[in-house]
């Protein structure tokens, strides 16, 4: 047969073997978990833990498809208690637990005969569960479970669960030992003066960072579950006595009333809980910096930590927050305010510069000195495209370079820069596709857009920039003025968790949420738009040593 096929493949035409696979349409919705066990016929979902160990075992094997899932580990053994043997088993997921902990502090005390499990006492005999809980297992984190829902949750989170025959209760041991990323320096919110640690994917590590840095018993971290399928742990943190109770309730209400199958990152949660999901303006602060979160918590805001995401959300987020850098509060107020002014200029240019350029060159030439006007006209002499196409081409190319720079593997990152600088810069000018002045305009715009501290706001302004290019081309300053008015109206209409989006602009008080950072010794008040219970964050005289 093979020989025939070989000959045919050499001397005759063979049809390509096409894989004709198509995903068939589902006519019926299968049950979430197939429990048809051929051996034991456990067709019904168990809610409560059965007293029969074998029944529990079969149910779990079926649920976890233990026959095909090699990482589900089940260990049958005989447990000694009060000198009586009981059939028992433990179940855990390989790779998620610390094997030494399981061997030394669960299996050894239960299996090996010793003084504690061989001593006979009538009282102890009557309550095996209590005996295991109180005497047999030397574990600090042990919980009794009665429902399979909790059992699944514990196993999935990396715990080890013990089932014992004759007991309708299971024991959950926290023996997590999976590998996780160590606390590292922030990658995307880099500052010079300030903490150099960032959040990681593990929720408990993140909460521990907050606990450690705030160092106050009033920090409340409330856990909840989001996602019917993934049951993702979400922690909501706030400082009791500072954060407004209504705000806390609203955050809890929004987070706990989500009907979604899964949440895999804080970015997804952010989109589900913000006030105006259709708006392109960011309304929730997402940060990887614990110091930023702490500053906001102490101001009366609320943080939301999602397990598996190194970005912590802080609500409410107002416009000024997205223009601020975490470094602002660490620097002298003069330096910080200078930086903020530069950032404001950068943001204005990033938003309006291409639009203004197009408007000025097309409609308002009198704004330019005559020499500059001649230079622009001369540089555009050989360019065949209208200025709108020219600027649109360059902006689109710049966006492509930026996007490619983000997606390519880091060793190739420099290549993108070379391609961008050489091909799109030098070559485009040499080929008279664009004018050199336009390259300068696009470069300044790009440079300015990198000064926007928030990643999401950067996106927002990129979209608006294209709109202003169109408006500037259509009607010069008239179009830009109309666009600015509408944009401002949109921003003024926005709210984030009950806080007006542009509120702190009108605020006269000395808080960290103002656009201009007050001196450290004058940050007396907390942000009034948050209506915190504790109004002041420092006394009238913060530097008491100066007071005579």
């Amino acid at each position, binding site marked *: 047969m093979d020989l025939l096929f070989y000959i045919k493949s050499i001397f005759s035409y063979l049809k390509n073997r096409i894989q004709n696979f198509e995903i068939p349409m589902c006519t019926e919705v299968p049950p979430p978990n197939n429990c048809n066990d051929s051996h034991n016929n456990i067709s019904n979902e168990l809610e409560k833990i059965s007293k029969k160990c074998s029944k529990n075992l079969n149910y779990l094997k079926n649920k976890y498809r233990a026959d095909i899932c090699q990482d589900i580990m089940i260990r049958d053994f005989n447990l000694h208690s009060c000198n009586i043997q009981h059939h028992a088993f433990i179940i855990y997921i390989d790779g998620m637990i610390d094997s030494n902990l399981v061997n030394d502090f669960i299996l050894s005390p239960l299996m090996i005969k010793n003084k504690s499990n061989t001593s006979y006492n009538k009282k102890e005999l009557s309550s095996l569960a209590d005996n295991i809980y109180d005497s047999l297992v030397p574990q600090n984190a042990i919980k009794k479970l009665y429902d399979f829902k909790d059992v699944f949750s514990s196993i999935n989170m990396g715990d080890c669960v013990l089932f014992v025959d004759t007991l309708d209760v299971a024991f959950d041991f926290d023996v997590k030992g999976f590998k996780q990323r160590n606390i590292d320096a922030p990658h995307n919110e880099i500052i010079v003066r300030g903490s150099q640690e960032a959040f990681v994917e593990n929720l408990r590590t993140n909460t521990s960072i907050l606990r450690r840095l705030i160092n106050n018993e009033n920090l409340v971290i409330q856990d909840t579950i989001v996602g019917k399928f993934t049951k993702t742990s979400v922690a909501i943190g706030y400082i009791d006595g500072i954060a407004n109770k209504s705000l806390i309730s609203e955050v809890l209400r929004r987070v706990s009333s989500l009907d979604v199958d899964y949440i895999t990152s804080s970015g997804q949660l952010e989109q589900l809980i913000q006030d105006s999901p259709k708006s392109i303006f960011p309304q929730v602060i997402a940060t990887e910096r614990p110091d930023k979160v702490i500053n906001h918590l102490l101001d009366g805001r609320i943080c939301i930590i999602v397990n598996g995401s190194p970005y912590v959300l802080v609500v409410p987020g107002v416009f000024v927050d997205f223009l601020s850098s975490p470094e602002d509060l660490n620097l002298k107020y003069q330096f910080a305010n200078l930086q903020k002014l530069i950032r404001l200029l950068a943001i204005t240019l990033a938003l309006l510069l291409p639009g203004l350029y197009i408007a000025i060159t097309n409609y308002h030439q009198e704004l330019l000195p005559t020499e500059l006007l001649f230079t622009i006209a001369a540089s555009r002499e050989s360019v065949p495209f209208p200025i709108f196409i020219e600027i649109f081409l360059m902006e689109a190319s710049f966006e492509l370079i930026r996007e490619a720079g983000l997606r390519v593997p880091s060793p190739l990152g420099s290549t993108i820069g070379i391609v961008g600088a050489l091909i799109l810069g030098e070559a485009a000018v040499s080929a008279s596709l664009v004018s050199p002045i336009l390259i300068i305009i696009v470069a300044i715009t790009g440079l300015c857009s990198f000064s926007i501290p928030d990643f999401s706001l950067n996106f927002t302004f990129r979209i608006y920039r294209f709109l202003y290019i169109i408006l500037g081309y259509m*009607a010069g*300053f008239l*179009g830009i003025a*109309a666009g*600015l008015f509408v944009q401002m109206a949109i921003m003024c209409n926005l709210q984030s968790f009950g806080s007006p989006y542009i509120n702190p602009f009108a605020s006269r008080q000395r808080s960290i949420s103002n656009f201009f950072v007050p001196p450290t010794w004058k940050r007396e008040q907390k942000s009034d738009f948050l209506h915190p219970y504790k109004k002041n964050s420092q006394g009238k005289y913060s530097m008491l040593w100066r007071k005579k």
Partner: protein
Amino acid sequence: MNISKIETAQAIALLSIVMANKIILNLPRSIISSTGSSAWLNVIYIVFLSFLFVFLVIKLLKKFPKMDILDISEYLGGKYLKAAVGIIFIVIFALTIGTVLCGYSETLKSIYFNQSPILYILLFLIGSACIANKFGIKAIAKVTTIITPIVFFSILIVLLTPIKSFVIQRFFPLLGYGFNETFLAGISNIFALSGLSYILLIPSLLKESESYKKVAIISLCISGFYLILSVCCTLLVFPFVLSPNENLSLYLLTKVSNYGELIHGVNTIFILLWIISVIAYISIGLFFMLYITQKISTIKSTILLNYCYSLILLVLSYVWKDYIQLNNFSEHTLKYMILAFVFVFNPFILILANIKKRFTRSQTTIASERNT
């Protein structure tokens, strides 16, 4: 439509920007052409009269807290009077905005858009106001609060920069075209502060109703100050006998100003700011038209009405053959309509409502005395 209460500062900004747009437009030149060198005296006189009007309104509204002229009309003459007053307000607002828009777009066309039809300019102005109105008065008020200081600052720069060109002798003769033109016929120039009509509608929109007095007086102070300053500066720079074709008085001033060798064409930047200010004015006017309609009818959603009114404004600002026709209508018809309605008819309603209130109260007191 999102109708929420506005704060004191926002209300002041709203009223000030409405009145400031008259200053940006041809009003100072129009006052100067009707009164001559005594325009500065005339404008002080009309500001004084406006203060009297505002104090009268405050006094008359004192017994009707949180009620605007429409509520008071309803109290006085029932639903029909309320509807009638409301409709007149809508007509006046529509005509005023229409004329302002037409004048402004004509000016923009002559400066920057020679090739474009006027409809093109109008679409931008009205379109953005229409979109802004979808977000309600709160958003409009906030935007206005942000832009008002910038607009007023720009006006101040424009007014004070040509200080070197000021010729004090242009204030003389003191009585200009005569006593009659300055103080009797000149009363009609109170039209410059016709934005005061919004003062009658704002009480029901205020978050703190007790700050109404503050809102009315401060906004009149700001607009009065700027009106006097703009008339004085225009008079000091240009001889009153000249009547240039430019519609924007302030734009004329920017042309004679010198901002140094490095800064070119600053007037374009001012135009950018004033376009935003005009859009704010149209948005506010459009909002009040929708607000009145909602008050006098049972309409709950004004989304469609917003488009309809925007279309009406577009038609009203596009219908004029030329600027002369518009100016004639504005100077000879609309001016007197507004004067009669705002400064005569509305105070008359307020006075009658106060008499009715006093009469009703005295009757109630007599009845209660009889019962006891």
